[in-house]
């Protein structure tokens, strides 16, 4: 496929992918929660525009209320994890309203006794933080579990990065106005075609492209 058509097709894919990317992120949260038998798991996305952390996916406790909530990017445990790129596990935190879990407690009324927090890294950049709240207290934490958490973080980071890229691409399309939107929709429709119809569509687009190249 010629490069420009490919770009348009990718853009069209992006338009439809927001929900799929969200589902992927949500599924990662659900699995993290299940693997660690935790009460909740959540993913923060780092929002560069506002320099904040946003709850992007929540499984278990708080799933009704936390989505979309924002906290400052460099305070609290999540902020520390984002800034330092270090994973930490805290358990058995003696109840105190000021402890770092307050960022969750303030929004849900549920005060976790412990959490695991791991940075979500994409290439050089941290793109967010994965939290796993209140795993069973009787199970002693091990370095193997820390590695497992790291593996989950890799998966969640990819899902989060897809979501981020998709939103950026959508923003570009929105900014470009209707012109590019039409191209994206045509590419999207073409992608759904099969057999002779698809072939004819491609030929038509090919002819259009030749026409545009000649005019340029």
């Amino acid at each position, binding site marked *: 496929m010629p490069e420009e058509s490919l770009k348009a097709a990718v853009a069209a894919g992006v338009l439809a992918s927001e929900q799929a990317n969200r589902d992927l992120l949500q599924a990662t949260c659900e699995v993290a929660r299940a693997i660690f038998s935790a009460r909740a798991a959540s993913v923060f996305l*780092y929002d*560069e525009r506002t*320099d904040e952390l946003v709850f992007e996916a929540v499984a278990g406790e708080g799933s009704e209320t936390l989505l979309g909530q924002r906290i*400052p*990017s*460099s*305070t*609290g*445990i999540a*902020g*520390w994890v*984002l*800034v*330092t*790129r*270090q*994973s*930490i*596990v*805290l*358990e*058995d*935190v*003696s*109840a*105190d*309203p*000021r*402890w*770092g879990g307050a960022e969750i407690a303030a929004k849900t009324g549920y005060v976790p006794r*412990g959490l695991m927090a*791991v940075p979500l*890294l994409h290439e*050089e*950049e*941290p793109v967010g933080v994965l939290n796993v709240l209140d795993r069973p207290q009787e199970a*002693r*934490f*091990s*370095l193997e579990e*820390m*590695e497992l958490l*790291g593996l989950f*973080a*890799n998966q969640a980071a990819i899902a989060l990065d897809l979501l981020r890229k998709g939103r950026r691409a959508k923003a570009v399309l929105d900014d470009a106005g209707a012109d590019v939107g039409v191209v994206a929709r045509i590419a999207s429709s073409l992608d759904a075609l099969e057999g002779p119809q698809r072939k004819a569509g491609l030929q038509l687009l090919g002819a259009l492209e030749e026409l545009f190249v000649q005019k340029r």
Partner: protein
Amino acid sequence: MSDPAPERPLPAWSLPAGTVESLGLPTDWPGRVTREWAWGDSTGKGVRVCILDSGIDADHPMVGEIEGAVAVEVGEGEEVRVVEDSEGDLAGHGTACAGIVRSIAPDCSIFSVRVLGAGFTGSGTALLGGLRWAVEQGFDVINMSLSTTKSRFAGVLHEVADAAYFRRTVLVASAHNMPVESYPWRFSSVISVGSHEDPDPLTYYYNPNPPVEFFARGVDVEVAWLGGARARSTGNSFATPHISAICALVLGKHPELTPFQLKSTLYLTASNVEEEVA
């Protein structure tokens, strides 16, 4: 070579004939370095430890009195200001590190340099600015349970880490829990620390397969947290202050040691080395 040596001043980093005595080492190293020699009876008194982190809650009973606290602020033009810190701890982690250091080296002096709170955008600049400031202050040990993955900071961080090394300031830095490139723990001028699962705070191992050089207690560690709370914690960032505190013990007894000698002492007294020798 028959030509006589040219008569020109020797570079400053050479050792002219007849000056060997100027290198007299005050350290009387025994034939076998033991933990007793390294830090027996030391409480870390006289050693200044800097915690470069989220701030310190000085009211926490596990931390006790601290020497001082500053915060690193980053302006819009990325200019760095170091100001007195009245906020305490913005996350809890710095307090945890301070408590670990205090539990092992009870009489060392602890100073807080807060590099958290400037927003994520300013965090790399704050980390670098805070580290630079701490090195200029001449602390004996700087505990860094943090790192950056941004390669644009790597070169400058490397320079600061080397400057610290030559000024006899030991940087003790957490290795990553995940296999990613980050700094400054990968630099050989710092002491890098990962975790082991043993519950003994004075058990630490030398790793013959760097970049991580030492493993210290980092699983299920009881730590101080915000508001007088306590928690059990896991992560390399909690292993690091164990090594910082042991450095403080050694320097309390042997203040003349250079970072190279201190790292050698850690090697010779590591749990997998001292026992082998014994």
